[in-house]
């Protein structure tokens, strides 16, 4: 009782496309509204017409050169902090992953299991002690207070270890016979071969940190140290009625992510399938 006559198949394909298109539209509509609202003059915000009558491109300049909200600075802060966190995470995670995956030492697998078990500790448990610790170390309200606590990822170690385990063991043996030290083995052989894993971890760490909200919100008090998400929140809190400006700021927040997405898409799919997604 096969139903796949050519006619029915075409009709089915058409239906699927219609369905997919309408879902895609509902995914896209909020973005469209955001972009359109960002070009409205203030007096058109009350209007239900989503399309601006008088296009006001100057909203973007107004946001960027705002006297009290320095988005340029927030961009810099976010990029600066996320770059450092990514660099340090890759360094510490790849070294630890190397020790867990490629070096032979007694108790290695037991230590690794214990280490993994602590991955389930939720951030809400550790954030209060970490906050108190930053107060004591006088790192509150500083770049270091944003960067250092975020730079030691058990998850990153786990992911890279899984990756490094798959590299053929014979490479190590050959290198060791040639007299290579563990340091050389790590730097010259394992690290270059782990590049795909490193790229995926780098993207996820960077993105995660770029959008990070909770920690900067409690750690940063000074206006010029705010990161982009925290800056966005304060912009909305103070100037929330100027929806056109808020939307212009939102567009500027989202556009770099969209561009990054188009370039990184294939790594993301790989990363998610490697288990790189959290929450």
């Amino acid at each position, binding site marked *: 009782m096969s139903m796949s006559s050519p006619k029915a198949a075409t009709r089915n394909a058409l239906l699927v496309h219609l369905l997919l298109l309408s879902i895609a539209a509902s*995914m896209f509509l*909020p973005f469209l509204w955001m972009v359109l609202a960002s070009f409205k003059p203030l007096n058109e915000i009350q209007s239900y017409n989503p399309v601006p009558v008088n296009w006001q491109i100057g909203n973007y300049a107004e946001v960027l050169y705002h006297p009290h909200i320095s988005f340029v600075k927030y961009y810099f802060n976010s990029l600066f902090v996320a770059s450092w966190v990514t660099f340090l995470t890759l360094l510490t995670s790849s*070294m630890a992953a190397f020790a867990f995956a490629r*070096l032979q030492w007694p108790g290695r697998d037991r230590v690794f299991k214990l280490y993994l078990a602590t991955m389930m500790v*939720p*951030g809400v*448990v550790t954030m209060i002690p970490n906050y108190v610790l930053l107060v004591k170390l006088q790192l509150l309200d500083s770049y270091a207070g944003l960067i250092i606590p975020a730079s030691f990822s058990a998850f990153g170690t786990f992911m890279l270890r899984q990756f490094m385990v798959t590299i053929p063991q014979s490479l190590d043996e050959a290198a060791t016979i040639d007299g290579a030290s563990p340091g050389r083995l790590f730097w010259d052989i394992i690290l270059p071969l782990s590049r795909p894993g490193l790229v995926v971890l780098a993207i996820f760490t960077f993105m995660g940190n770029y959008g990070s909200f909770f920690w900067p919100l409690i750690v940063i008090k000074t206006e010029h140290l705010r990161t982009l998400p925290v800056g966005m929140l304060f912009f909305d809190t103070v100037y929330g009625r100027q929806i056109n400006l808020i939307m212009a700021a939102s567009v500027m927040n989202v556009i770099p992510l969209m561009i990054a997405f188009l370039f990184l898409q294939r790594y993301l799919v790989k990363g998610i399938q490697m288990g790189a997604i959290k929450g």
Partner: protein
Amino acid sequence: MVTRRRAMLAALLFLLPNLLGFAIFTLIPVGFSLLASFTNWNISQAVPLRWVGLDNYIALLRSEPFWLYLVNTGYLMLGLPVAIGGSLFLATLLSRPIRGGGLYRTLFYLPSFTAGIALYILWKKLFNPTVGPINYALDTLLMPLHTGGEAVFTWWLWSYVPQQEWMGALLDPPWWLAWTLVQSPSWLGSTQNLFALHPEHVQLNASQFGFGARDAIIVMGVWGAIGGGNMLLYIAGIANIPRQLYEAAEIDGAGAWAKFRHITWPQLAPTTFFILVMSVIGGLQGGFEQARTLTEGGPAGTTTTLTYHIYNLAFEEFKIGYASAVSWVLFSMIFVVTLINWRFGNSHVNE
């Protein structure tokens, strides 16, 4: 055993940076937090630090807000099955050989990739009851309902109500006209919800039935999650199902639904289980960013989740001891879910 000691030393050197940071920012804080939860520690008051035993835990179990916020957290998690089901649906659609599949996938993934404060603020504007487009669309849809209701009401008044009772009927319209009184929800400003939960007490109240702030957050969450990582996991899962199973089913005359029900769904069970566990763990800790940007936990605390509650206790009220106790209760709930995962989960799903 010089080589053995050298190997140990090398391993230690490689582990050191990560383990040091890990010890300082995870391991020690966990112990510290547990200890703090048994004290009266408050950084705003000059009360001497004291060991209070289980007092914080007893206090939180007796505090009505804790239970309300637990209910809120659970309520927001109602969006999870919807989002997961939606992801599965999209994945099955995208797993068919269709033209432009990659483009659709990109479009669906966009909300989850760009997720963050900027999009939450966008949704705050979309949900605005006076200038937001969502209620504009709803009002437009409701207009015929209202006009139709007026017509029915007028007809009923003329035909069946004695003239001297018109005034009473106008002031107190009959119950069967209630549908014409349906208004667009005020979303983020409303405590209403689909279970008619009372906002201030753990009880039900009929006047609370409707759409409110929590539902708005669920709608936003489903929009953001439906085409995200879970959809990609499902696509990968479907790609791994042996084609022969479908071919055999087709020979037996199975339709699309039968194939889904008897092949796709059972074959994806490990993926679904993994997604569900991860979502529940995330959901228990969730809601902070949404509450902080959209509602500040309101109205009347109805969007305050446990994480937002802990944030308020620790960083607004400075009750470090009590906040730590709440965080350990939350941790224990997450732990239970993790145990279920360890017991029943299929560990190779995540590889």
